[in-house]
């Protein structure tokens, strides 16, 4: 039964490619989402998913599908820089700046695309993605971007953590905080660019926020959060694609695969929420702690 639900759908080549792409993006999103959580960049991520839109349109106009990634990359970096510059004015809070930046860029994209005839189809594809149509080249692109992001995080991860938990200390050590912020924003932008063509903006923002939020509900420890986030991102890709396939093939209910992956991710978040609430409830009862303490040498920490 489980085999039929979770393994069989991926015998088809296009489902295999979709699964590889979903696993790559899910696990990459899981890693980056931890930094998004620590630096509270949920809104930045959401803004970046919208600001790349004019780049996608321009790239397509200049060089068809090959231009999309480069156009998106250009606008992602441009908006990451603009965000850093505009945030220098203390009078306007960062969230207001972000809202204006994201809608302004998005409007430019809408103006550009509203002069084309295939307006609605383009917009829909951008928003919802087409993961079932990814080809080998796109998977390789995703893998390369993922490798760049992971190597950078491995090199700068300590600095990002220091900046997140102790900005004054980081500044005193001589780190230039705006540069560190810019670097992290560019990394988030890279993930957005890698993912946006395959899975659409909707899924990207979910991948960048929900995995670590779920992990955070389960633990205070960074390594546990990281592991949980990566697992949640990967599992959601797998389960979501399988569920979408089952619904479409056996139940006559067409479910967009990108959206189903997000719903699976949200389901995992709800599960983590229930586990956390249950643990608190049991903790309040107290007997479990006493039971655990009885089986442990004195002085041990909380289970």
């Amino acid at each position, binding site marked *: 039964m489980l085999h039929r639900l979770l393994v069989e759908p991926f015998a088809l080549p296009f489902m295999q490619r979709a699964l590889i792409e979903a696993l790559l993006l899910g696990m990459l999103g899981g890693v980056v989402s931890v930094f998004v*959580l620590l630096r*509270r960049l*949920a*809104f930045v*991520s*959401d803004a970046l998913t*919208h600001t790349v839109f004019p780049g996608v349109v321009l790239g397509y106009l200049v060089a068809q599908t090959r231009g999309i990634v480069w156009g998106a990359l250009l606008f992602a970096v441009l908006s990451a820089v603009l965000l850093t510059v*505009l945030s220098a*004015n203390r*009078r*306007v*809070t960062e*969230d*207001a*700046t*972000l*809202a*204006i930046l*994201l*809608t*302004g860029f*998005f*409007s*430019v994209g*809408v*103006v550009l695309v*509203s*002069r084309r005839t295939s*307006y*609605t*189809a383009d*917009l*829909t594809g951008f*928003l*919802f993605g087409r993961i079932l149509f990814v080809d080998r080249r796109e998977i390789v692109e995703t893998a390369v971007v993922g490798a760049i992001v992971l190597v950078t995080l491995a090199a700068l991860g300590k600095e990002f953590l220091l900046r997140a938990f102790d900005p004054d200390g980081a500044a005193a050590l001589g780190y230039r905080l705006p540069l560190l912020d810019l670097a992290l924003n560019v990394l988030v932008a890279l993930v957005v660019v890698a993912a946006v063509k395959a899975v659409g903006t*909707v*899924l990207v*923002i*979910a991948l*960048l*926020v*929900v995995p*670590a*939020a779920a992990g*955070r*509900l389960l633990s205070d420890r960074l390594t546990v959060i990281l592991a949980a986030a990566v697992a949640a991102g990967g599992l959601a890709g797998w389960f979501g694609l399988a569920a979408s396939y089952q619904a479409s093939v056996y139940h006559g*209910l*067409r*479910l*967009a695969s*990108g*959206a*189903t992956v*997000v*719903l699976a*991710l*949200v389901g995992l*978040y709800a599960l983590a929420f229930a586990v*956390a*609430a249950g643990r608190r409830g049991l903790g309040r009862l107290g007997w479990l702690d006493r039971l655990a303490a009885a089986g442990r040498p004195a002085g041990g920490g909380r289970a």
Partner: protein
Amino acid sequence: MSAAPLFGDAFARRALLEAVLVGALAGLVGVHVVLRRLAFFTQAMTHATFPGVVLAALLGVNLLLGTGVFGVLAVLAVAWLWSRQGAEETSVIGVVLSAGFALGVALLSAQAGFTRDLSSYLVGSVLTVGRADILSTAGVLVAVVLVLAAISKELVLGAFDRGTLVALGYRAGLLDVVLLLLIEATVVAAVPAVGTILSVALIVAPAATARLWTDRLGSMTAVAIGLGVFAGAAGLTISQLQNVAAGAAIVLVACACFVLSWLLAPRYGALSRWRASRAVLSTVDGPI
């Protein structure tokens, strides 16, 4: 081309009225969004109401009803998750945003032939608003003005000094929910004119611009409303002359006002801050 033939026909006049009403409403509510830093929440509302749009179309009920119901559900979900421990604010908003939008997309994909309604919902179609749209926008405006007249002081106190608000015996959580509902009503009312994605700009940009020009809440509110009305009217005029999407033109006018003020505002603009820092440096003798 003069203004008279530009807004000569009934469609264009209705569009102008709607744009002006939405601009005023967005400017008014935007002040609280900016002061309370709720821009991300506003952005999430625009996405989380999406399943309401799809369901309203499937069931054949009014669009405002569908978005309204899902907006209230999203507000309650955010408020409930915020009240729990261990859930960080922005990630809660991100989760609700993703969940709502994905649910909408999943519902949508189960239904073919919906794309036209979808794009007008996303980016607005102010030229096709009817009498009912204008009436409901006006109704929301009146309701928001009345509620704000009643609790504006409390909301501002909550924005600047939440501890005092609680100490005075107010139920801060309840006031939060009321404010979130006001924002949600504004987002829903702005959908016909500028669409969901762009309504955020019309709410945030005028208020953020006003904050660059003045320190006083009263004048900030007045400037924000004026800018909202101006963006609505000017954007609509540009879209008529240049044949571009009206919602996008309105938003671009609002953003242009912000960027110009960011550069040129008398005390808080980039130019005057740069000159002030040079003036300080020139009073210092020799290298620092």
